[in-house]
């Protein structure tokens, strides 16, 4: 250590610079003109190192990141389809959606908008769908889960007569709707389960495309739970040219919410992101 200052060495001065010195140490520095002069030198050195580093050019930075991601792909192999698991039955009283679902729904809204746009564009070039009663077909989105499941209870327009663009405002009440959807999904996917209340009438599928996929055995109703404590929600649906998709929101295993776009026809995850 520098011994030029008999009472205040550079370590104390450096600590003063970092705000890590004790009051006594600060007092000693303040009392010594020589220490203050040295402090000035150390401060200048610190400021020199802290000077901003010119950032990488965007192209270079992109190339570095791209190469790292390529390496990751090589290490892990291409993404494989993730089979969806069937939902685990839960008692009705435990179906309260956690508060974070509201955040999930909000985060998913952005994706919903994208899906709406894609579905809308796709729908313009499509002939009417055989299993759609909307006439124009195609644009079924977030509020389909709403409309198909809760029209009778909430007054939201039903899917059978809703050709208009989706009303994203319906997401505000998505929690209640999703509760109903979870209940309905449990019925349709696991009717034999004793833990689910029976109904006399066969429940209608949440939406026609879903029932078609279910009938084919390729992909039953999307999972609303994947494990204890994990809650997944279908926050949007869409009919794309290649088939129906759903947008699901659930835990990310860390901060944020995991969003999946699932192809119901093939039962695979088409896209995934954490927001």
């Amino acid at each position: 250590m520098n011994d030029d200052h008999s009472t205040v060495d550079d370590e104390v001065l450096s600590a003063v610079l970092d705000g890590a010195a004790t009051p006594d140490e600060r007092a000693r520095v303040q009392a010594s003109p020589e220490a203050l002069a040295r402090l000035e030198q150390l401060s200048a050195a610190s400021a020199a190192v802290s000077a901003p580093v010119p950032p990488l050019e965007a192209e270079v930075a992109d190339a570095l990141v791209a190469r790292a991601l390529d390496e990751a792909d090589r290490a892990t192999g291409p993404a494989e389809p993730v089979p969806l698991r069937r939902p685990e039955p839960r008692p009705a009283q435990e179906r309260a959606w956690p508060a974070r679902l509201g955040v999930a729904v909000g985060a998913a809204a952005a994706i919903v908008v994208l899906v709406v746009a894609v579905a809308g564009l796709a729908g313009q070039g499509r002939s009417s769908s055989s299993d759609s009663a909307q006439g124009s077909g195609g644009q079924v989105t977030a509020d389909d889960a709403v409309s198909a499941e809760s029209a009778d209870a909430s007054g939201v327009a039903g899917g059978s007569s809703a050709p208009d663009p989706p009303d994203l405002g319906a997401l505000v009440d998505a929690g209640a709707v999703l509760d109903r959807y979870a209940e309905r999904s449990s019925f349709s996917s696991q009717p034999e389960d004793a833990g689910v209340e029976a109904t006399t009438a066969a429940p209608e599928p949440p939406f026609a495309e879903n029932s078609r996929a279910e009938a084919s055995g390729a992909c039953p109703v999307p999972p609303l739970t994947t494990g204890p404590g994990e809650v997944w929600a279908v926050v949007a649906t869409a009919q794309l040219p290649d088939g129906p998709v759903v947008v699901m929101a659930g835990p990310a295993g860390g901060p944020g919410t995991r969003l999946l776009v699932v192809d119901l026809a093939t039962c695979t995850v088409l896209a995934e992101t954490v927001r």
Partner: protein
Amino acid sequence: MHALSRRLCGNDADAQDATQEALLALVRGLPRFDHRAAFSTWAHRVATNACLDELRRRGRRPRVVARLDSSPANDGTGPALDPVDRAVGVDDSVPERLAIDAALAALPEEFRVPVVLRDQLGLDYAEIAEVLDLPPGTVRSRIARGRSRLADLLAPDADRAGNRTDGTGVEGTTAR
């Protein structure tokens, strides 16, 4: 990450390579990240190690990209002087930046790293201690010693550079 690499490596080319290595190390190590430390702490540790590994792989100290003084001699212990680097465009801040690079390059690694983590990245002693797996008291001491040498190297009267430090001497050319 690039800022860290740039300060530790001393020039843009090595910093770019080190940044690439750091990103690759992050990608490779991500599956083993166990959340016991904050992600930023882990990332800083990975980046620091990647940069230092890159320098060790090249078997040299940080290479500063231009001559800093007018003397033609170089004792070989300080920053290498690369003729190619003289072609670098010069603005008013370049000499100052080069002086900083040279001074940092002259610091032993054990002092350079904590100083950069503190002054460039703004980590506190505890965070640096976690990144480097050192006691906080050691971090404080090493930062002080590093700054002390830097102050001497960057001081207008650089004659003091070899005399004021704590016995380990100053390597390489001094920044003027």
